[in-house]
C-alpha cells in the first residue's frame, strides 16, 4: 500500500500534459510524469519519494510512436520494453532491454521510464549512446530535437516540466554488428553486475557500460584505448580499464575488484564477438 496520497491525471495531448505540470507545480503539488510506473510505485511504497500528483503520459500519441520512417527509427517514451523486443527494429536495443528485470515487468517498463529513472543501471540508454541518437524533448516554450550525448551526463538532463517524448535513431545503426553482454553474479533474474553493449562502425568499436559506475556511460577515452591497433589486445583492455570515468561500484551485487575482473573478461568477450580477437 502506498501511504502518501496523490492525484492521478491522464492527459491525451502533449499540451495538456505540459499545462497540467505547470498548473500543479504552481499549486505546490510537485507533479511527476508517469509512464510504466514501476519505479514510482516502488519508491512511493517505500516512502522514498512523495508527490502530490502523477501525470500519466501513456495516452499521448507522440509518446506511443514506434516506427521506421524517412530512414529513422522513432520510439516513443511510453513504448514498453516488450514492445521493443517484439518489433525488433533495433536488435542491439532488443537484446539489451531484454536483460532488464523479468518478462512481466517488461510489459510495464517503458523506454522513457527506464532512461529517466533513478535506478543506476538504466541499460536501455546504452544502444542509443552508441548510435548517435537524438531525443525529442518538449516544454511549454517549445520542442527541441537534440543529440542524446548533448543532454546526457550520467542521466538525462531535463529541466523542470520538460518531457522526453521520443528517441530517434538513423537506420544505418540498426544493422551494424553488435554485442550486448549482461553479467549477473548468481541468478538470471537479478540486478546485473554489469551490462556491456558494443557495436562496430567503420572498423571502430563503440562501447557503452552500465553497472560499472554509479551511472551508465560511453567514453571516448575507453574507445580510443580499445581501438588502438598499435597495441596488443591485452594492453588495449588494460588501458581501457584505467580510463573509467568514476570509481567502480562496490556494493552487494559485487565488489569493485570483482567487477573489474568481470569487466576485463567481458571486454575480451566483446572483442571476440566483434571478431577482433580469437
Amino acid at each position, binding site marked *: 500500500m*502506498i501511504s502518501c*496520497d496523490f*492525484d492521478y491525471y491522464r492527459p491525451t495531448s502533449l499540451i495538456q500534459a505540459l499545462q497540467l505540470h505547470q498548473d500543479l507545480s504552481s499549486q505546490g503539488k510537485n507533479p511527476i510524469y508517469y509512464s510504466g510506473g514501476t519505479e514510482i510505485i516502488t519508491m512511493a*511504497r517505500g516512502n522514498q519519494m512523495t508527490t502530490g500528483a502523477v501525470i500519466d503520459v501513456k495516452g499521448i500519441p507522440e509518446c506511443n510512436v514506434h516506427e521506421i520512417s524517412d530512414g529513422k527509427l522513432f520510439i516513443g517514451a511510453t513504448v514498453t520494453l516488450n514492445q521493443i523486443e517484439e518489433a525488433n527494429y533495433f536488435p542491439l536495443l532488443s537484446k539489451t532491454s531484454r536483460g532488464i528485470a523479468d*518478462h512481466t515487468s517488461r*510489459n510495464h517498463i517503458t523506454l522513457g521510464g527506464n532512461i529517466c529513472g533513478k535506478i543506476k543501471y538504466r541499460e536501455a540508454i546504452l544502444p542509443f549512446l552508441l548510435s548517435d541518437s537524438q531525443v525529442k524533448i518538449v516544454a511549454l516554450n517549445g520542442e527541441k530535437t537534440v543529440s542524446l550525448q548533448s543532454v546526457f551526463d550520467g542521466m538525462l538532463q531535463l529541466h523542470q516540466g520538460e518531457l522526453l517524448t521520443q528517441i530517434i535513431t538513423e537506420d544505418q545503426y540498426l544493422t551494424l554488428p553488435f554485442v550486448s553482454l549482461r553479467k549477473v553474479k548468481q541468478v538470471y533474474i537479478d540486478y546485473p553486475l554489469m551490462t556491456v553493449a558494443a557495436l562496430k562502425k567503420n572498423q571502430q568499436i563503440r562501447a557503452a557500460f552500465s553497472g560499472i559506475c554509479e551511472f551508465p556511460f560511453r567514453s571516448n577515452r575507453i574507445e580510443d584505448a580499445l581501438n588502438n591497433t598499435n597495441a596488443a589486445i591485452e594492453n588495449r583492455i588494460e588501458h581501457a580499464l584505467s580510463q573509467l570515468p568514476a570509481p567502480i561500484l562496490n556494493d552487494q551485487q559485487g565488489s569493485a575488484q570483482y567487477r573489474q575482473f568481470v569487466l576485463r573478461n567481458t571486454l575480451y568477450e566483446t572483442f571476440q564477438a566483434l571478431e577482433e580477437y580469437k
Partner: protein
Amino acid sequence: MIATKHAFNLLLNGEQKEVYARGSDTLLNVLRGQLGLTGAKPACENGDCDACTVLVAGKPMKSCLILAQEMANCAVTTIEGLHNTPMQQAFIQKGAVQCGYCTPAFILNSHALVTLHPDASDEFIDDWLASNLCRCTSYQEIKEAVKAVLAGEFVQA
C-alpha cells in the same frame, strides 16, 4: 489531508464494474479490498514475486505495480475470470500446485503465454515463467503443464 476517491469503470472478467479509488491505490488493493477478488495475492508488493499477476488486455501484469485509476476502461482478467481452461486442467493433472499461493499468478501468466505464443520454445517458456516465484519450487511441474497445453493435451472444458 483526506484523500479524494474517484469513480471509474473497469472491464473486469468481462463485466463492467464501477470502482472508487484514490490516485495512489494500486489495482491489487482495489481488487482485493473493494471487489473481494482475492485470487491476486499480495506478497512482496514490490514487483519481485508476481503473486499478484493479472491479465491486462491479455498480457500478464503485476497488479501491485499498477495504479487502479490507470485501468479505467481497460480489460482486466483475474484468476476468477478463468473457468476450466486447458491451463487450469493441466496444473491439476501435472501436479503443478503445492501450497497454492502462487498458483493463480502462474496460471494467468501461463494462460497468456500459450494464448499469445502457441509455438513457444523452451527458452521462451523459461523467460516467461522466470517472472514468477514459487517458494515450494514446483517449477518443473509448472513447465510440464505449459508444455502439455502447447502440445494440445488439454482442451477447453
